[in-house]
């Protein structure tokens, strides 16, 4: 199984939830279950993109080379539990909407 990390280019005006060109490959520990992990070094701009939620991790496999699983890397957002209300709207990722 491969593990690829994709980054969304801010210059393209794209953002959260919008697939973009691949930015990195991460070498990962191999396995079919449990935890897999790897590491990479980000530039300052890539770090900013990560903090803005413009990066996601995509796990590819032989049968699905275009992606099995996709996970967006977003800031921590505590979840109080199903049906537990929070004041305001709670965590709501923000696409760059100009208003």
């Amino acid at each position, binding site marked *: 199984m491969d593990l690829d990390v994709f980054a969304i280019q801010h210059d393209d005006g794209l953002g959260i939830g919008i697939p973009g060109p691949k930015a990195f490959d991460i070498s990962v520990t191999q396995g079919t279950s449990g935890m897999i992990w790897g590491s990479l070094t980000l530039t300052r701009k890539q770090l900013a993109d990560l903090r803005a939620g413009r990066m996601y991790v995509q796990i590819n496999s032989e049968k699905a080379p275009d992606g099995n699983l996709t996970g967006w890397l977003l800031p921590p957002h505590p979840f109080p539990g199903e049906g537990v209300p929070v004041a305001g709207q709670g965590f709501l990722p923000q696409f760059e*909407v100009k208003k």
Partner: protein
Amino acid sequence: MKKQLLVSSVLAAALLGVSAIALEQGPFTTDQSGAGRALYAANCGACHGATLAGAGEAPPLAGSTFLAAWGNRTTEEFYNLVKASMPYGNGNSLDADTYRRIVAYVLAYNGAQPGTKPLTGSENVKINTIADGKTPPALLAQQTTPARGGGGGGPRPATYYPQTRLGMTVTGTLPTYNPVTDAMLAKPADGDWLMYRRNYQGWSNSPLKQVTAGNVKNLQLQWSWAMNDGGAAQVTPIVHDGIMFLSGTANTVQALNAKTGELIWENRIGPPPTRAYGATRSLALYGDKVFVPTTDAKLYALEAKTGKIVWQAVIENAQEGYSNTGGAMTIRGKVLVGLTYCNRYQTKHCFISAYDTNTGKVAWRFKTIALKGEPGGDTWNNLPDEFRQGAETWIAGTYDPELNTTYWGTAQSKPWTRASRGTGAGATLYANSTLALDPDTGKLKWHYSHAPGENFDLDEVFERVLVDHGSSKDVLTIGKVGVLWKLNRVTGQYEDSAQTVFQNVFDKIDPKTGIPTYRKDVLDSKIGDWISSCPGPAGGHDWPATSYDPNSDLMIIPLHQSCVLMRAEPMEKKIGVGGNAGSQLLFEMPGTDGNLGRLSAYNTSTMKAAWSFQQKAPFLTGVLTTAGGVGFVGDYDRRVRGFETATGKTLWQTRLPTAAQGHIVSYAVDGKQYIAIESGLGGGSPVGKPATLLPGIHNPNNGNAIFVFALPDN
């Protein structure tokens, strides 16, 4: 022999100077495709149609549109998609051989010739190498399955609908019935629920306050009633003078004693239902009549006391795909209805219409598509009129008696994407708009386009809620993109908006006009491009309606959180061709941790959220709020919550036999407050999407019913 025939046809084509491509034999047998016909009719035909032409959200499975979407994909992909997601909302529920036979039939219907090896589902065969979309005459001649809404004989859908006679199946007479007047509709009695969202303003708020935040935990079931199965049910129980009127599948109307659940009369108007299109969302009352817009695009007036038909009017021809699911409303002696499934290329177009409540005579029609030469007709990129479709009205409107103006929302234009429609950057009026109409004449007073040139099946068709803020008369609405809009309902001017779920469709909303700008990659997208849409076609906000509580100025909004990648498919510009022409790949909305359901309360003055909570299961009922400070909402996981309106805190909950659906209402009989909640099937995208994203949640494929709760007498 078959091979020789194929070769001969290729030679003939070559001799005529026509380019042709020899088709390979299909990876299925004659036995499979032959057996597949009945299985298709039983499991698929109700939605996709006898001729595989598709209808509504069900795409065509034959012809040029199917080949355009699937020609370059393989039989394995097609088999896997059908198996995983069909029947709609109940994927993987049939055995593998049944799926194989159905796929074989679909391929054969598209001109694929049977071979010698049976289909297994793992064949890597490009569909355009075996099929050309042309149906063999022998298969065309076999059509006996009824069209949706068309009645007639032939195989029935797999979803069981009991064989029963239609017509006046239970006779009885209401002991008393006070005719419904304009004054009653303008100010409903506290114990009544006379229309879809209870009052003309569309609030779904009951002034009853026997049930409070302090005692709601004591609610008990008083009675229940099994409604017809065999199709979608999103009913609004209508209550007047202690009588509950229900609309069920097969366009069945029932009058029950709202205190005891005793059936008084029943009229099964028909035709029999299908899985996806079962029953109207709401009946309407006026004078001594009950008005029933039916799934076969007719309008019936029943005598309220007996259920007998007084008159019948044809809204549009159901054989051409038209239907009505959105319910009706009555204003000043007229009954107003919308129309849906206007997604085929033809010379007709969708409309809102009004009928005399006494005679059924049509009073006016307002066409929701602007044609060439008409105001707004220049917003369709110069398309010929017959290729301007959509703008359905599948939710009943609201009404301001003082302004004598009725407010309706419209659906998006069809097909879904700009590329498939060929409408460029045109706004495609009056799609995805708020319409303000004179109910006496049908004349348009103003319109506001919420999503000019929509691209993702993101309707703005839902309830229009009328709220006054001081001297400002506002209309609020929220659509699938999840933006809560506030307009001045006198002028149609934009006032404000609020984003209620994550959205990445618009990258700008003009602060003065509210006009949104689509992302550049959306504007630049072409046929075949996969483009992200958050939310996807389940919303944001969908048909499970909001409630407005005037005591707190809070609008409680059921929200759905999922996304899609959508691919624009080509659509042949030809009369009779139609559909939505968009393929979808569903994915979890970023930042939601798999919580598809979100319930949020927004202050309509400030447009700020007061509270919000999330849960795995999306909500499938409209919200009810009450003067007792308690609200109610139900979900896909069969759960109904009673919550404190001010805080969102759950105070009571129960579970129903299948998904909680439809529209929760509250009424009173003999001084006692009741809460009526439906469980039901169907529901379109809000049901279909979680069936894929939440495989761990199970609900039965039957169980249309009403449950009525109240506090114990002591």
